[in-house]
């Protein structure tokens, strides 16, 4: 049963290989091996999930990967509550996204490459959550980063995509630097072992000095801030939206970006021993949630709104993790993972629905250019609504239950914190900020929803003031051409042009017309996955939360049951529930007032709040700040190095080479002047010197 675990990453990998190698022949059918592979992996994950409930956790070694000196890294998988929960979620969402993508990416010249990379990503992601030691986790951690790099840069001819891909990889490398140092440190103090069983062990941990534990914890958190897009390393995620929308849904919303949350949750036995690190995590998560929500308020690109919303929601997860002080530890981890779980459904849904809008709008995603689409896109509208309700935390939706648990955890942490030496007001402040952020969340969600689907209908045209100049030409000719989806510039498309004729392709999912789907609802192959996700966004919270199914499964992770000493009975926190729901309803209500029909209110408020509005619109100038400091500094250092190399080091070497010639020509050469008397004088001088020496010694 347990050795089945190998199959979970193996199936998507095989699918990816078939799609990559056979893509030339499969062409438009390339999605099949990958969808089948991921679907099979989902099935196996369910079996594993079940086996953990029945048999408990286990390990399996596949082979020995690295044996260099004292570094021994087995390719070892572990199956426990946390792993199987992640596996099931990842493969489930990935299957739906892959099905959606087979419609969305239809006709793209690089269709096989897309699915090969998606399969490779699912392989890496499942490997990441399965691995049983830090090095293997690190390996897959960078592996998902590489897949993300290649998928964000999928439309390679698009300069913005290339830049975003590079940025994503580099920012993540900065985080990985911290991860690597943490691993080195652990290796030296944990007796050259890096397996979770040896490191995350209460008996071992208590022999380690507090400062060391704190240092390792903060380094791991540093790594998590990059992968899970928290302050200060969140800047790559919004840019990553340059990739195809299914990629944004799968990688940059539901799965990869939660890897940081997973890492901290996995290491929570270490983190609960250092309350200082926990408080840091809570505060950073809180600030990120607030900042991202504020930016999301004013963005006009629908996908960017969702991207900042993801950053903000990840902030919630970190707040929950950070609440794990003292006896709240177990409850906090469960709350964080539960939000991760529900968020995966409703955020993937919102992204895919945005993609569906984009698909119908001929690649336009700027909300200023369309309105009132609810009649044209009925399925997209309804599913987006479900996702929006869940994101806003409206009662009985999935987001409601998970957000409530986070608020409850923070509330409990405020009472518990003083017992472990952390001032309680820190958590109090985080709690209220989280509530305020919930209000903002509901508002920007409502804004995106009402703006897109309500009000008088309007479709993007080439004459929009926001349209890019090159687009004006494309729009008229190939407005609904599949290939042109998300390739707004003529350059990009021309550069793309492998073949102008549409890929010959037997259509198997009932949308045969290549010519025009502009302004039309997406085909079933796209909206059926949306509908399934919408069901989960509405009901997953109710089904898994209050019933205790989720928690019971999650604590089948070694160490989780006893974490934080004595267990606290989780009293239903009525105050948080009411406040949280009120924030959600209020936010949506305000958004209805402002955006359900064209209204002068938003513009007036924006004008009144001039500075703040502009700051939010320009993302608080964080990117500019980094460009002016870190990037500028690196390039300056590079320029200095180059100058030193060309002028200093090089000339030093040349002068060493020049020395013998100088001595020969200028010093020794002139001595050989051919004058007899000069030589005689020199001889006499030499004899005198010799005599002097003989006399003296």
């Amino acid at each position: 049963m347990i050795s089945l675990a190998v199959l979970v990453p193996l199936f998507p990998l095989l699918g990816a290989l078939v799609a990559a190698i056979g893509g030339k022949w499969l062409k438009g059918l390339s999605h099949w091996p990958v969808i089948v592979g991921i679907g099979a992996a989902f099935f196996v994950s369910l079996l594993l999930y079940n086996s953990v409930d029945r048999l408990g956790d286990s390990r399996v070694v596949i082979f020995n990967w690295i044996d260099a000196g004292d570094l021994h890294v087995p390719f070892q998988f572990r199956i426990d509550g946390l792993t199987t929960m992640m596996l099931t979620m990842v493969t489930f969402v990935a299957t739906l996204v892959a099905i959606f993508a087979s419609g969305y990416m239809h006709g793209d010249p690089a269709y096989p490459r897309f699915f090969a990379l998606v399969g490779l990503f699912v392989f890496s992601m499942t490997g990441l959550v399965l691995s049983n030691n830090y090095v293997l986790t690190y390996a897959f951690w960078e592996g998902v980063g590489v897949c993300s790099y290649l998928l964000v840069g999928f439309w390679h001819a698009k300069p913005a995509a290339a830049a975003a891909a590079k940025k994503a990889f580099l920012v993540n490398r900065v985080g990985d630097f911290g991860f690597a140092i943490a691993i080195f440190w652990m290796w030296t103090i944990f007796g050259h072992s890096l397996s979770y069983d040896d490191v995350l062990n209460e008996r071992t941990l208590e022999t380690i000095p507090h400062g060391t534990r704190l240092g390792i914890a903060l380094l791991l958190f540093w790594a998590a801030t990059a992968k899970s897009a928290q302050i200060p390393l969140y800047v790559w995620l919004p840019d990553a939206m340059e990739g195809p929308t299914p990629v944004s849904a799968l990688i940059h919303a539901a799965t990869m970006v939660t890897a940081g949350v997973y890492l901290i949750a996995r290491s929570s036995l270490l983190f609960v021993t250092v309350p200082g690190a926990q408080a840091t995590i809570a505060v950073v998560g809180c600030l990120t949630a607030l900042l991202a929500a504020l930016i999301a308020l004013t963005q006009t690109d629908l996908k960017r709104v969702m991207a900042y919303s993801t950053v903000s929601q990840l902030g919630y997860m970190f707040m929950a993790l950070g609440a794990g002080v003292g006896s709240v530890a177990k409850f906090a981890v469960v709350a964080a993972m539960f939000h991760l779980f529900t968020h995966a459904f409703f955020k993937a849904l919102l992204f895919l629905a945005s993609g569906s809008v984009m698909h119908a709008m001929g690649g336009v995603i700027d909300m200023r250019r369309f309105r009132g689409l609810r009649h044209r896109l009925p399925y997209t509208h309804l599913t987006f609504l479900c996702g929006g309700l869940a994101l806003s935390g409206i009662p009985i939706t999935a987001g409601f239950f998970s957000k409530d648990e986070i608020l409850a955890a923070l509330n409990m942490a405020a009472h518990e914190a003083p017992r472990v030496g952390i001032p309680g007001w820190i958590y109090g402040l985080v709690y209220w900020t989280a509530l305020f952020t919930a209000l903002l969340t509901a508002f920007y969600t409502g804004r995106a929803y009402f703006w897109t689907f309500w009000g008088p209908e309007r479709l993007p045209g080439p004459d929009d003031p926001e349209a890019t100049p090159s687009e004006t030409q494309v729009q008229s000719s190939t407005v609904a051409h599949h290939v042109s989806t998300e390739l707004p510039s003529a350059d990009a498309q021309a550069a793309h042009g492998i073949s102008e004729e549409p890929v010959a392709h037997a259509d198997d999912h009932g949308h045969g017309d290549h010519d025009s789907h502009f302004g039309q609802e997406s085909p079933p192959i796209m909206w059926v996955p949306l509908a399934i996700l919408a069901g989960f966004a509405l009901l997953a919270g109710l089904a898994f939360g209050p019933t205790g199914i989720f928690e019971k499964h999650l604590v089948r992770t070694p160490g989780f049951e006893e974490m934080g000493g004595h267990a606290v009975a989780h009293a239903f926190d009525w105050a948080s529930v009411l406040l949280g729901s009120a924030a959600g309803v209020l936010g949506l209500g305000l958004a209805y007032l402002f955006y359900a029909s064209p209204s002068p209110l938003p513009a007036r408020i924006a004008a009144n709040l001039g500075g703040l509005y502009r700051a939010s619109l320009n993302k608080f100038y964080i990117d500019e700040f980094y460009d002016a400091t870190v990037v500028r500094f690196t390039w300056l250092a590079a320029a200095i190095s180059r100058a030193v190399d060309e002028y200093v080091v090089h000339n030093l070497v040349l002068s060493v080479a020049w020395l013998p010639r100088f001595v020969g020509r200028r010093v020794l050469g002139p001595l050989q002047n051919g004058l007899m008397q000069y030589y005689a004088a020199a001889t006499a001088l030499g004899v005198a010197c010799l005599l002097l020496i003989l006399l003296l010694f």
Partner: protein
Amino acid sequence: MPMLLTITVFLPLIGSLILFLMPMWSYKTARQFALATSLITFVLSLFLLIGFQVGTTRPDLPQFSTSTDWLTVGNSAIKFALGLDGISLCLFALSTLLVIPSIFSSWESVKERAAAHYGLILALETGLLGLFASLDVVLFYIFFEFTLIPLFFLIGLYGGPERRRAAITFFLYTLAGSLLTLIGVVSLVMINQSYSADHVLTFSIPELTKSLPNLNWGDWHVVHTWGEWGPRHLFSAEWWDKVWGFWLSPQVMIFMLLFAGFAIKVPLFPFHTWLPLAHVEAPTAGSILLAGVLLKVGAYGFLRFNMAMVPLGAQALLPFLGTIAVLGILYGALTALAQTDVKRLVAYSSVSHMGFIALGLFSMTKTGTDGAVIQMVNHGLTTGALFACVGIFYERYHTREMSELSGLWERLPILAFFLILASLGSAAVPGLNGFVGEFPILLGMFSRNATFGILAAVGMVIGAYYLLIMLQRVIFGPLREPGAQDGHGHGPASHAESIRPIGWHEIAGLTPLMALIILIGIYPKPLFDRISPAVGIIARHYPPEPDRGVAVKVAHVDPAPVKSLANLPQDRAR
């Protein structure tokens, strides 16, 4: 079996002589002949690879060894002795492999004086193979210097516009260093004779490796510690005595002599300036072999001589060596970042990556050394592949300036695949080969000296930066080719006919490298199985890791006796 090694080493030389004697051969005949020779050599080296026994009880004994007296010196003899241990086996196989892509990269680009060109490549191959297989210091040194000659002519005759200056700089610079190394080698032999128990004169590398670190060098053994430093010390005669005593300690002095030649060869910062020049001017084949194998000669020398024979000197110089390696990593990476010529960029990336290899060797841990040796192979593969890729588009566009090229993915998709894979491998992405080398290296150095480990790890970030920038500019973005009428649109379409698509020979040259980049990344065990025991022989004399209050004692402690600075009487008078 012993004959097999000798044949493998000298077969390319025979091929090369035939090519030199046949200048009238057309480039087609010459290239086919050269390819056949290199393929046979490669197959022979595969036999060696397969025939090499793993897990023997005596990893210190070289396999396939052969030995004949060559020059009689007193009552001893300089021997013609060849043999392979785990370390040299890997580099030996790497050399025979890399010759193939370098021949393929010249396939279409070298048409004039082609026979001599291929002859030089094959002669260089013999030099490299002989060097790695030598078991005698004199033989080693002869091959060491011999490699200079064919490469000098490769650069000087077939290189770019500045080829003469580059060839002369390369030749003189490396020669100057290696003469100092010669003094170091000779003194090692003499010391061994004077102080070993039976006073034998031996030139055998395995014997010297065995005897020298255990030797009582008498008073020569003293290694002074540097002592603390402060401005007031400048006026203290006692402190100056210590400093002089330190640098004049025999192990330190001999280490520095050996270091001189190898550091230039590697090249370590600040002895690297010949490298970018040589690379930019060298033909692609020369660059592949220069970066792929020739740079490893320096690192190999460090391991064989510096670390194996004077470990106390290495230990005493650790702060100095670590600083140089870390500076080289960061400086090389930053300078690479500032380049606009792709070939210069890759050349500086070699400076940075060779810094990593040196760091692993200087970490004086088995983990770091194992990593460094496998990284020698890895760097040969990735950098060889990168230079071959650069050669592919240089041959077509006659420019390597990143500002003039863009979006080549469009025109040459296979090149894009190769270049991305090689770059990711070079950036040490896990699952590809660079990671299994760099990670143990950094780990080893971190456990020896955390500061050096952390600073070097910064190099991993910058390392990814310049490679990704190169990819972004050359591979990504809208297609822009020099010579096209306008930057985009219909221009390239008319230009397309003149740009040759990737040929079979280019694919054939790069595919084995790509396969190994992936294979070593996923399953490095076969290499580690061969490297580790051989490294273990050398690592016996390394000091133990600093104690950090280890929580769980699960690691096995090497039972071999360890000599370290701490065990030595510090104040023993000269």
